[in-house]
Every structure is written in C-alpha cells, then in structure tokens.
C-alpha cells in the first residue's frame, strides 16, 4: 500500500469555511489564510478540488491512500473562535473530501482541534472519532505552552480513548503564536522553513520531561514538518543528562530516547537528507527510524516531492517508509466497522 501522510487540502474561497459555521460565527470575519508572515513561494497545484487532487494523487500518482492535514488559521485570539474554525474545517473535510467525490474512500482525514480550548477540543474529538474517514487528531506546531503541559491532558486522553494519533503541523496563516524560532522572528521564508522542525524537538522534550508519556501510555504523536534527524539528535542530548536531572523529574523513568518507540512518528519531507540521496538510508539506520518515518509529499506546496527513489533503499525500508508504517500506525488494512457519515 502506498500512502502519502502529508496532503494539504484548501478551501475553494476565502469565505468558504464560514459556510460550515452557524450564527453568529458565519458572519464574523476571519483572518485570511493568506495573512501569512511566511507564505511559501508558490504552490505546484490547486488543492481545492477533491476530484482534481484525487486524479493527480491516485490515478496518475499511483497512491492508494492520502492523509489530509488541512491547515486552519493559526491560533486565534478567541479560543472559542479557534474551535469554531476547527469544527468548520472538519465539517468541510467530511462533506467534500471524505464523501461526495469519486476518491472519497481513499482520502483519510484529520480531526482539527484548537489546543488553547481543551473542553471544546475534547467535544470535537468525540464528535468525529466514530467516523471511519478520520484517522488522527490535528494540532498546530506553534502556540504558547509546550505540549507536555498538563493543560492538554484532556485532549490527549480523548485521543487515547479513541486510539487516534495526534499529528502536529505548522498551521496556515498567522495567529497569536510565539515566534517560529526561539530567537525571534526570522527575516525570510527560507530561514523560517529550515528551522521549523526544531519546534518538534521542544515539544518532545516537554512531553518526555513533564511525564506526559508516563501519564498517557498509549499516546502517539506524528510530527509532520520534517526534520526528523535534527530532532533525534536533540534527544541524544536529553539522554546524556537525564540521570543527573532525575531528582527534578522522577517521573522520567527511562532514558528519554526510549520513549520514541511507542510514542513518536515523523512525516518525511523531501529536504530530510544530505546531497547524496542514499545517505538517507544510513540516517534511518543511525536513528533506528525506518519504522517510524512516513512519506508525506506536502502537496500542493512548492516543495512537494514524489517520495523515495527505490534504487537508494532496500525493498524493506522503501516499503515501510512509502506506506507500511502509515498502514500500521493508522491501522489502514483492518476492515473497519466505523461508518463514513456525512
């Protein structure tokens, strides 16, 4: 099975999301999805039409499944408004992508929630978890409080209750998030884009250091902005000193990198390698990552890529990264009793 774990559908017009909101929200203006401080240079395609995207991905591209990660509008100042946007996004995906098009059975959705509004986030998870088309919970990469904080327990516990992984991806649009880097706002898109994945390392240090994986033993995170090698290297540093720091955090019961196995997956991006494509196989080996890295094209962004070249990898590693890992994580092969409702 070939699976693309990183497809970004877009609404067909700036106000289309409001069509899925009730009053008074449908008339409250939203920041535009193009009010983005670091817009990608270009897109390679229009990703607003499920039939058209499906033709490119499935009919021409040979994919079997595509995991949709729709972006929302950044962290809005009003958490309730953020939850309304997330909810409308899920409604839009359910009605237009997971149903009512010829590729609906091949699309898999992400239940977007607003993490600064945990009670509504939990409601939203319960609302959609029974829908067979949704395979994970989605939260933005940036915010104000790292994801290991107990304020998020209700969200993670709801995800566990439905056995759904949580995907973290940089959002679309600019909200009230902290700067994308720890040293402030970068100047250019390139600086922003290259340093983005390090935020995953900060969240992971928090999730491990604050004991969230001890508290939530079946919680699974997918980091969808690439950069897996840098994040793994950061975890080596945690491993180095965790014994000395144990007295401050006795809930960390094992070497930090030991938490990766049960809890952490990455979406592989096209830039996650050296100049020599085959070096990536070596990186997988160094980090023991070949069973937790999943191909994601980032379609339709400018840097969308077609995946690994089978010449550079063993058949086993190639198959795992290009589909099997996603198939296992999202349990895609199992016949489902869940209904696809609209």
């Amino acid at each position, binding site marked *: 099975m070939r699976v693309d774990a990183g497809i970004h559908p877009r609404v067909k017009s700036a106000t289309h999301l409001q069509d899925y909101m009730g009053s008074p929200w449908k008339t409250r203006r939203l920041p535009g999805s193009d009010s983005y401080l670091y817009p990608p240079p270009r897109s390679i395609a229009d990703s607003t039409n499920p039939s058209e995207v499906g033709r490119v991905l499935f009919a021409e591209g040979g994919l079997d499944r595509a995991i949709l990660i729709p972006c929302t509008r950044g962290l809005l100042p009003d958490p309730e408004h953020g939850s309304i946007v997330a909810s409308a996004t899920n409604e839009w995906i359910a009605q237009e992508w997971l149903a009512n098009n010829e590729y609906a059975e091949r699309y898999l959705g992400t239940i977007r929630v607003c993490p600064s509004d945990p009670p509504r986030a939990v409601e939203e998870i319960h609302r959609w978890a029974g829908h067979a088309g949704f395979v994970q919970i989605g939260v933005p990469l940036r915010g104000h409080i790292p994801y290991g904080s107990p304020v998020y*327990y209700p969200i993670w516990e709801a995800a566990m209750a439905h056995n759904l992984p949580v995907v973290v991806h940089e959002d679309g649009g600019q909200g009230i998030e902290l700067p994308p880097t720890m040293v402030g706002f970068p100047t250019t898109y390139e600086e922003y884009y290259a340093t983005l994945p390090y935020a995953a390392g900060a969240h992971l240090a928090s999730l491990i250091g*604050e004991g969230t994986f001890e508290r939530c033993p079946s919680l699974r995170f997918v980091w969808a902005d690439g950069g897996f090698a840098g994040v793994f290297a950061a975890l080596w540093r945690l491993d180095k000193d*965790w*014994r000395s720091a*144990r007295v401050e955090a*006795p*809930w960390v019961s094992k070497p930090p990198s030991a938490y990766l196995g049960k809890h952490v997956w990455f979406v592989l991006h096209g830039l996650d390698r050296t100049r020599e494509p085959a070096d990536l196989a070596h990186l997988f080996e160094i980090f023991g990552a070949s069973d937790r890295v999943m191909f994601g094209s980032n379609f339709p962004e400018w840097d969308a890529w077609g995946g690994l070249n089978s010449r550079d990898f063993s058949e086993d590693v190639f198959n795992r990264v290009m589909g099997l890992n996603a198939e296992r994580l999202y349990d895609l092969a199992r016949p489902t009793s869940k209904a696809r409702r609209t």
Partner: protein
Amino acid sequence: MARFVIGTVSEIPPGSRRIVTVARRSIGVFNVSGRFYAIKNVCPHQGAPLCEGQVTGTTRTLWTSEGPRLEWCREGEIIRCPWHGWEFDLTNGDTVFTSRNRVRAYAVSVESADTVDDPAERSTPSVAEESRDGIKLETFPVEVAEGRVIVEVDS
C-alpha cells in the same frame, strides 16, 4: 576475605561517613540511622570519588489530576555523586534511576559488641548483585564488634 577495623562506632555517628583505603581500595563507610554500609569510592559513571558526595534523600512522583508532583523521601539514605549528581541507594548500592550501566556494590554489616554472638541480631551483609537495570555499586560487609566498625574486603 580480610577484615579491617576502620574506627569505633562513636567516631562515625549516624549521618556521618568515613572514607578509608584498605586492601588498595578506597571505600566509604556510612552510618545510616545506626546501621553501617560500605561502598566503593568510585562512581561507575566516570570514576568520581562518589563517597565524597552529598548524603541526602530523593524524590518520587505523586500523580495528581494537575500533573505530576514531587514528593521527598528516603532522607539520609541516598548519596549523590559530586560530579554529575547520579543518585545511589547507600543501603544496597542500587541506582535510583534505571540504567543499563553497572557499578559494583559491596555489602556492609554492623554488629554491636553485645550482640556479636547472636547471629539473628546481626545486620545481614548484602552481597554485590546486579540491580534491576544493571548499575550497582560495589558494597562491602561491615561488622561492628566491641564497638569497632570492621569492613570485610577481598584481599
């Protein structure tokens, strides 16, 4: 097994320690609430003089709905390495953290002069064993006889 008198009970009151060199080995003898324990003065991490570290307690986790909370426990039974703060249990040489490393531990027993003939009342010497994760300090049997503290070391 050679026996070395390293001092009298009154010279090493509860909470104190004496670091001695016997049979070419540096060993720390600790009085933990009236019971004596001896460990090798070498941290298994990087060879630091472990027995010069702080004798203290440690933390454990108390889970609450608001997240994990620290709870202080085992005051006086834990030694922290002076270099990197690794924590060891003085009473058995185990690490407080889990790890794949291994340190050698020696059993220590203390016997008082008036109970030396009553084996049932002797502290049981602990023997060097693997701790749950592999790291364990080398410990030595300590005996108290006639008010003297005696350490047993393979010579």
